[in-house]
Structure formats: C-alpha cells, structure tokens
C-alpha cells in the first residue's frame, strides 16, 4: 500500500517527523515515533519483524554510542550521581542518554520507512515534475545509479586479474589491501563512463534549457491526503502529550 503513495507525500511526512524528533526531548515522544513508524513498516509495508530488526542494527549501535557517552560524560559528575541518586538509572544522564538512543532509533526508523515506501526512480521523476529538480541533475542521478552494477562487475574483473597475476584462486571476499587498490581504478572507470554518457546524451539532443515532457509522473490521490492528514494529526497529538 505504501508504494501507492506519491513519493513526495512520504518525503514531506518523513522530513516533518525527523525535524520533530530532533526538536522534542522526551522519552514518550521518541518512543511513540519509533513505534508508529515501526508499525507502519510492519503493517503497511509488509516487512517481517526479523528483517526490520536486522535493518535497525546499525542505528541501534549508533544510538548506543550516544547513550554510553551521555551516561559516562554528561556534565553532572558521574560520582555524585552514584552517591546521591538511588541508582544511575534514575539520573538525568541515563535519561538523557536514553532519549538520544531513542532519537537515533526513531530517526533511523523514519528513514527506513521512507526507503521502503518509495520507488527511487518515481521519487526523482516527482521531484522533477513538482519541485523543479533540474533534469540535468535528475538524469545524472539516474546515470550514477546505472553505473553501480557495472562498478561491481569491474571490481570483480580487477580482482580476477590480481588473482591471475599472483597465480592464486580468487578469494571469496576481498582483503582490505585488494579493496584499497581497487578504489582509483574504479573511479577512473566511473569518470570515463561519465564522459561517454555525457557525449551520448548530448548527441541525442539532451539540453538542460529546453522544455520537456515527462513520462510516468506519479500523481496525487485521496490516499495521499488521508496519509498526510493522519500523520500530521498523530504528530500534533504527540506534541501536545510530550
């Protein structure tokens, strides 16, 4: 169902919620945002809970760093906290750390919701059609995305050549040294490819200053209105009760 929404509706909703989670310093609000977007992903996006948990690991690790930093290094003296508070868990440091941990998770969940809800190509088309994203940049983005599979193929070729030169079988995973040596050749490949793509586009009459028509521009429907109003209403309630 999420894919039926206009990508710009999802983008606007996600940005508003990210700003709200950045500004509101409350355990309840951050938890609410986390639960809301997790529910949207699980129910409307039909993602399995196991996959969702797996995708959230980097955000959890990121947030845990802020939790430990706050518990250990908040301005109030940690020793004083230990003496005068019944436990560290009741201290402002732990509470502040918990809020930042939840903020990292909530921000990650909203970002994940956005990534799972939109078709990237449709987003770029919608940006061109409704928000005047210059076609030159939009098509450059498409070209960059197209390059990625070829980068992987070129990286594989480079690894094969290295293995043949060294007279050894291809390793299953590249070593850090192999990865390091691949960086510049891959960039050189990408730059060459960009030059060729530019010539091809110009040869086909691609000009930034010409009016153009767009195919398959995502439209807005009643569903977008309902979705946007619902998320804004929930945000309003969250801000009132936070």
């Amino acid at each position: 169902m999420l894919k039926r929404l206009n990508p710009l509706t999802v983008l606007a909703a996600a940005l508003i919620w990210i700003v709200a989670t950045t500004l509101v310093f409350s355990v309840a609000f951050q938890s609410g945002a986390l639960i809301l977007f997790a529910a949207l992903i699980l129910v409307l996006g039909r993602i399995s809970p196991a996959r969702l948990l797996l995708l959230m690991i980097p955000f959890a690790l990121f947030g845990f760093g802020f939790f430990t930093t706050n518990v250990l290094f908040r301005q109030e003296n940690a020793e004083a906290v230990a003496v005068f508070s019944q436990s560290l868990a009741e201290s402002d440091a732990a509470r502040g750390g918990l809020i930042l941990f939840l903020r990292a998770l909530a921000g990650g969940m909203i970002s994940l919701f956005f990534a799972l809800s939109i078709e990237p190509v449709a987003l770029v088309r919608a940006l061109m059609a409704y928000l005047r994203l210059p076609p030159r940049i939009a098509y450059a983005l498409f070209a960059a995305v197209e390059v990625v599979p070829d980068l992987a193929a070129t990286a594989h070729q480079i690894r094969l050549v290295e293995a043949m030169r060294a007279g050894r079988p291809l390793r299953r995973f590249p070593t850090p040294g192999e990865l390091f040596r691949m960086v510049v050749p891959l960039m050189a490949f990408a730059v060459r490819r960009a030059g060729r793509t530019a010539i091809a586009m110009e040869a086909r009459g691609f000009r930034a200053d010409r009016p153009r028509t767009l195919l398959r521009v995502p439209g807005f429907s009643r569903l977008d209105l309902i979705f946007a109003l619902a998320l804004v209403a929930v945000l309003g309630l969250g801000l009132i009760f936070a």
Partner: protein
Amino acid sequence: MTSAWTLRETLIVAVLGAVFAALYMGWVQIWLIAQAIIGPLSMDVFMGFWFVASIVAAAIIRKPGAALGAEVLASAVELLLGSPGGLILVLSGLIQGAGAEAVFAATRWRNYSLPVLMAAGVGSAVFSFAYTWIRFDYGALAPGLLVAMFVLRSVSGALLGGFLGKVIAEVLYRTGVLQGLAIDRDKRTAALA
C-alpha cells in the same frame, strides 16, 4: 572560465558520488566495529572520510557548488540504492557539503591547494559538529569531552577528508581520465608559467 557546469562535469560528480556511496557504506561497517572496540569517540575519528567526496569533486571540477553538490549527490545515490539511512544521510550530506563549500567560497573558488582542501575538510567537520550538537544534545556533555571530540573530528576532516581527497584527486589525474577538466587546465597553465 564559466561557472556554469557542463553535462560532463555534472555526470562526473554524480558517478563519483556513486563510487563514494559504495565506499561510505563500507566505511560504516568499519566504524561500527571501531565503535564497539574504542567507544563513543570513534565517530569523530572516522567522520573525516565521509567528507572526502566533496573534496575530490571540488579539487577536480573547481567550480562553485562542486563540494556541496558532490556530497549531496553521493548521499542521494545512497538513498536511490535503498540505503536504510538514506534520508538522514541526505540531510547530513547537505550540511557537510555546505561546510566544505563555505571554505572554497571564502577563497572565491580560486584556491585548491592542499592547505585549502584540508581547511575544507575542517569546514565540513565544524558544520557536522554543529549539526550533531543540535541533534544529539552535545551541550549537556562534559566540556573536556566536547573539546576532544571537536579536535578529533577536525583532525579527521583535515586528514581523511582534505589530505586523502587531495591524494585521490592527484592519483586520478595521473590516470589521464580528467583531461579537459579544471584540474587539468590549471596544471597545464601552471606548467607553462
């Protein structure tokens, strides 16, 4: 020299963004391992590498907007490739790119020497520090730790962003693929002078 971008330059910045998007995703894994081993300061130590796209693009294209555009495009490519953190990365990319761009703007986009590139790395570090200050309530942390974090992030920006960016741009130049771009024109002019 016009400040308008050619299609080739736009595409080069975008595809470099794609390469750096892949490298950035790999760097996240290394940082997360470091985070588990050396703790909270690891982000500041590793942060500089996430600025390198803007430095390399600026060193090659040498036009207004190259640093900002490269960083935003790199994060946009991550978004288009379906990175879970894509949307937040675009916001971060915008802020980090603006930090580097501010330094190049201060030189009126005329100086791309190593010290300026390293200063651009520091510029990204300063802007990203301000962003994380707001987003993660740095004002509540102990002043000593804040100073350590700021210094580490600035040094990381100068070295992993500025210095490494310069090295990458120079090595890439030696492959010959940057012919006809501003870096090539400037080097030829300097050789003739």
